[in-house]
């Protein structure tokens, strides 16, 4: 490694504890790690290893019980739910395993959704959405409903939606989990393309083949980052 990228995300001894009945469950038991701007990282690990909790914290859908989480140098571990939402709308793009496109909206309207919540750059929204669809090769499907699309197309629409607000970080949770082989390859290729364009991507998966696409792998085990094998 010749030059270290500027850190985008820094976690310092982040812990997340849930109370289940009488017992405390330590979903994250002290995680310290840095993800640089422009990195393509895969978070892998068996279920229950804490990778989903890590994902939720990175996505600002939850707050750490203790420790510090900063994003672009700013401490975001104690933001209000409204500030978290605004952060999600402006700086993050989500890609889900089950696509999570809203069935009653057209592909175009689905892609436009994050922009309406970001409340910025109002006017060129449609142009940006069209660009995002172009980038994933779905321009011809903009007016269709998600139900009229194949699985692979739906996930590409999901990626377009994650891209539309030019996020600093794309979080993908098992993005290929519901796809067949050919489509998996296509989606991974899309991620690699975005990465080579400078996009920071964190991909959560339990599939080692998928994880192999990423440049760096973070292995989670029992709520901690396992030492590199």
């Amino acid at each position, binding site marked *: 490694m010749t030059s270290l990228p500027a850190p985008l995300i820094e976690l310092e001894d982040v812990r997340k504890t849930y109370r289940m009945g009488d017992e405390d469950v330590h979903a994250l038991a002290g995680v310290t790690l840095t993800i640089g701007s422009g990195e393509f990282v895969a978070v892998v690990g068996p279920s229950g290893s804490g990778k989903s909790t890590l994902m*939720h914290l990175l*996505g600002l*859908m*939850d707050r750490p019980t203790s420790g510090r989480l900063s994003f672009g140098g700013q401490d975001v571990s104690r933001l209000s*739910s*409204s500030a978290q*939402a*605004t*952060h*999600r*709308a*402006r700086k*993050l793009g*989500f890609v*889900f395993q089950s696509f*999570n496109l*809203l069935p*009653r909206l057209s592909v175009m309207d689905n892609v436009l*959704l*994050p922009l*309406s*919540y*970001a409340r910025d750059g*109002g006017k060129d929204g449609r142009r940006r959405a069209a660009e995002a669809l172009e980038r994933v090769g779905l321009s011809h499907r903009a007016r269709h409903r998600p139900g009229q699309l194949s699985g692979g197309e739906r996930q590409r629409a999901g990626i377009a*939606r994650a891209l539309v607000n030019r996020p600093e970080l794309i979080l993908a949770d098992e993005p290929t989990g519901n796809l067949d082989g050919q489509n998996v390859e296509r989606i991974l290729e899309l991620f690699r393309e975005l990465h080579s364009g400078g996009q920071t991507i964190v991909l959560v998966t339990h599939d080692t083949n998928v994880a192999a696409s990423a440049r760096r792998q973070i292995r989670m085990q029992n709520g901690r980052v396992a030492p590199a094998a």
Partner: protein
Amino acid sequence: MLFLTGMRDGVREILAHPVRSLLTLFGLICGVASLIAMIGMVHGMLAGWRAFLYETGGLEKVGSVASRPPAYQKHLAGISPGRTARDAEGIWRNVPGVTHISPEFAIDEYGGTEVKRKGRRSPDNLVYGVVPDVIVINRYEMERGRFIASLDGERGRCVAVIGAQVAKDLFTPAEDPLGQTIDVKGQPYRVIGVFREAVFMQGGRNVVASKNRSVCLPLKTALLRFNGGSERLTWLNFRVGDVEHLDEVVDAIQNTLVILHRGVLDFSLETQEERATEYRRTERSLKTSMGGVSAISLFVGGIVITNIMLASIKERIREIGVRKALGARRRDIFMQLMAEALAIGAVGGALGVLAGIGLVNLLVWLLPGQPPPLLVPSAIALGFGASLLTGLIAGAYPAFTAARLDPIGALQNE
């Protein structure tokens, strides 16, 4: 922008399940429709009453009628002269609040007098002797000719002014009644005027039709020829200049009449105030009962909306999770669902207005002979507004519940 999208989503939600939406909106539609119908009925009745009150002399008319004296005065009844033209004179001199006085003597006070002309008959007329003031108090209008003047009375002339129906009965349309002679109980009277037809339709019936069956003679002529020269009157009506002082004027009339009748209470005074009070009471009870029906319908409609929205939110938990993950704040979700609730209220209100218009027309058709309900624009606005408000109130709790959903839990919902 988000709000408009929310409204659009709301309308989509309604259109996506037409039957369910209709059931959801049923209470709202009933509430709005009954509100419009209720206000329409009350307004229709009010308009009817007002016109009827006007046609029969208005609030400013005070009548005096004969009544049996109280038991303790029974033996004194004979000393009272009864109501005579002298009463009119006395009131005129002593009660300044009275602007018109109408002493009246009817051949048959129940209006059963037949009038004839050249073999044509006009049955069941009110033939009565009057003074000129009656035209003001009983609100007659002239169609042709002139009304009875004071000189007609003083000279005891045999002239008559006839109502429109009497004219129709006795004359062909081609004939001019003026100057013709009619037969009242075997006595000839020359027609000097014809009243304009009084029409006040209520549910297809002319409720002031009896006015068109009037035949007015000069009072003195009628007393001489049909009352054996006695001055006893059938009615003695007054018109009060200022309704504000009605009570005081009525008291003054009462006092004067007691003196003129030598202390015998063989008369009673009637104002239309009592009828007006009764109208107001009916209006209030109608408003309360129909308003209650509307309020209950709207309330039940609101609960149904709350219920259906909670169910719809349950189906859409995942959608709410997705929206939250994409950056929707609590207030964005809240606003979106409130917009949907408003859209439900608007659609329900619009359908309710249509149903209300239909209901008003149905009532007009169903209830002939009643004052027809009116379609009041302010009632339509009120109904629509009430529907919007119900939608907002009903949507608040579901919207609040949805806004507070935890994004992670919502996303994992299947």
